[in-house]
């Protein structure tokens, strides 16, 4: 749906130049919710603004649908932008217009006859649950309601793509979740491709199918959310995961005092629910299992858990347990082998 190939963006000013995007290659599938996560200044906003050419690339190509945006005349670009909705962190609503008129603005801009506005605006307001607020002004709404208006407005011209730049970053956690639910619902109902920029892993785990991690203008890691969670490759990614994974650190002294046996980190994805796995491991392999620490989280539509266990016994027992776990689709990392003890 969206393809960026070797996109570079250099900002120039009196003091010199700054490379905000340093060769981005990205391919976003139709109908997926694609997350882009990174710290402030990583280049996320610059990247998402490439996708409707609010920011023009210094070099490289940006393709949305089957049009290469760089090649369009300014008139055609304006037409193409109608099919790419955008939602902003600070909502960017017109305070001089009512909720209704804010949602109607894109229709006015696209030259849709006024007689067709009411049906479309009312449909969108009911989609975002604001039918009763049509005549209010944005100043009379809460942050979450403002963002709902922003989303309704972005959908006015039936776009194929929805770009969300930190759409939930100005909202409290509860409102964030309700907006994420709404985006998920829209994605499903309208089979819309959604691109979500965020610095919060919570947003990614909640609704994204795939994620790209950005740092210093580069994509440093990219893949399905499950893969990224179960097998992060960079420190930055691990830091983001730890935002939502709680404290994964296990006290070294505590491990020392555990005595003989293996210490394992088991990662469960999807089907293999951790509790039944432990029970059957004990029953079928006949080993003892001490659960040290564990948690299960729900990603968009898949369960994902990590469990730290201590299995007393020798190398044979360790090998049997690991073989059983692996056979059942559990990823196992050995933190300390059965023999020797002490070192991780």
């Amino acid at each position: 749906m969206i393809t960026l190939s070797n996109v570079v963006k250099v900002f120039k000013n009196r003091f010199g130049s700054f490379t905000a995007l340093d060769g981005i290659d990205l391919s976003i599938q139709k109908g997926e919710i694609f997350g882009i996560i990174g710290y402030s200044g990583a280049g996320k906003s610059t990247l998402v603004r490439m996708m409707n050419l609010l920011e023009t690339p210094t070099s490289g190509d940006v393709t949305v649908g089957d049009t290469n945006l760089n090649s369009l005349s300014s008139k055609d670009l304006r037409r193409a932008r109608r099919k790419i909705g955008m939602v902003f962190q600070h909502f960017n609503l017109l305070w001089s217009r009512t909720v209704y008129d804010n949602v109607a603005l894109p229709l006015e801009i696209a030259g849709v006859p006024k007689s067709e506005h009411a049906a479309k605006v009312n449909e969108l307001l009911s989609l975002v649950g604001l039918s009763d607020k049509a005549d209010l002004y944005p100043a009379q709404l809460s942050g979450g309601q403002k963002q709902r208006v922003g989303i309704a407005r972005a959908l006015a011209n039936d776009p194929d793509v929805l770009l969300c730049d930190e759409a939930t970053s100005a909202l409290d956690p509860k409102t964030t979740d309700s907006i994420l639910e709404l985006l998920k619902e829209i994605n499903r109902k309208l089979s819309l491709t959604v691109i979500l920029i965020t610095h919060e892993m919570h947003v990614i785990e909640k609704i994204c199918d795939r994620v790209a991690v950005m740092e210093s203008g580069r994509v440093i890691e990219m893949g399905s959310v499950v893969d990224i969670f179960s097998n992060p490759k960079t420190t930055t990614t691990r830091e983001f995961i730890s935002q939502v994974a709680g404290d994964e650190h296990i006290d070294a002294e505590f491990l020392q005092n555990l005595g003989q046996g293996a210490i394992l980190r088991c990662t469960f994805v999807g089907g293999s629910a951790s509790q039944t796995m432990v029970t059957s491991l004990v029953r079928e392999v006949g080993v003892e299992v001490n659960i040290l620490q564990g948690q299960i989280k729900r990603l968009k539509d898949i369960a994902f858990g990590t469990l730290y266990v201590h299995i007393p016994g020798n190398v044979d027992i360790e090998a049997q347990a690991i073989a059983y776990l692996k056979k059942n689709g559990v990823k196992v990392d050995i933190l300390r082998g059965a023999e020797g003890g002490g070192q991780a």
Partner: protein
Amino acid sequence: MNEFILTYLPNVVKFWDYIVKAIGETSYMVSVSLVLSAVLGIPLGILLVITGRNHLLPMPAFNQILSFFINIFRSIPYIVLIIILIPFSRQLIGTAIGPDAAIISLVVGSAPFVARLVETAIREVNRGVIEAAQSMGASNSQIIFKILIPEALPAIISAVTVNAVALIGFSAMAGVVGAGGLGAMAYNYGFNGFKPDIMFFTTVLLIVLVQVVQMIGDAIARKLDHR
């Protein structure tokens, strides 16, 4: 009451018809120059913003020249402007005195003032909102007429109100150099003609006019402001 007026404002009664005429002249000068200065000043103010760096239509050289000329007109004292514009008035309307000639200098003097006030008003419009409109595929003219002007309207109304008050003051000054109106009345009859009651009364009228104009302007701006 009648007795009071006859005792303290004898000339006001005697010259009442003149005062009525002067009110008419002042209203005419102020309202026509208010409209003309808004018609000139508002587009200039918008141009000052959108031709600036990083805005809709960046034209740095044009922007600096425009800004320079606006500053020049703003720094010429009004009384000097009246004199400079005498030949121009003769060319344009055939005379350099009277209310119409005053309107020319009032417009030339206040349009740049309006332009600066409108510039500030337009600059206050949130950049994010402009960007949102661009992301919808809005053209520059749609952004000006659907975003910039409506969003800045209360501030533009306030700017026009400030200018109206300034115009009332300047029209009184123009009156002194032959444009008629309440200022001329105060000066010619009141000051030169030794009729202090006329000077007092016309001044009170000017004060009332300013208050009324300010009240109306504030009310409209408040009604339009949904922030």
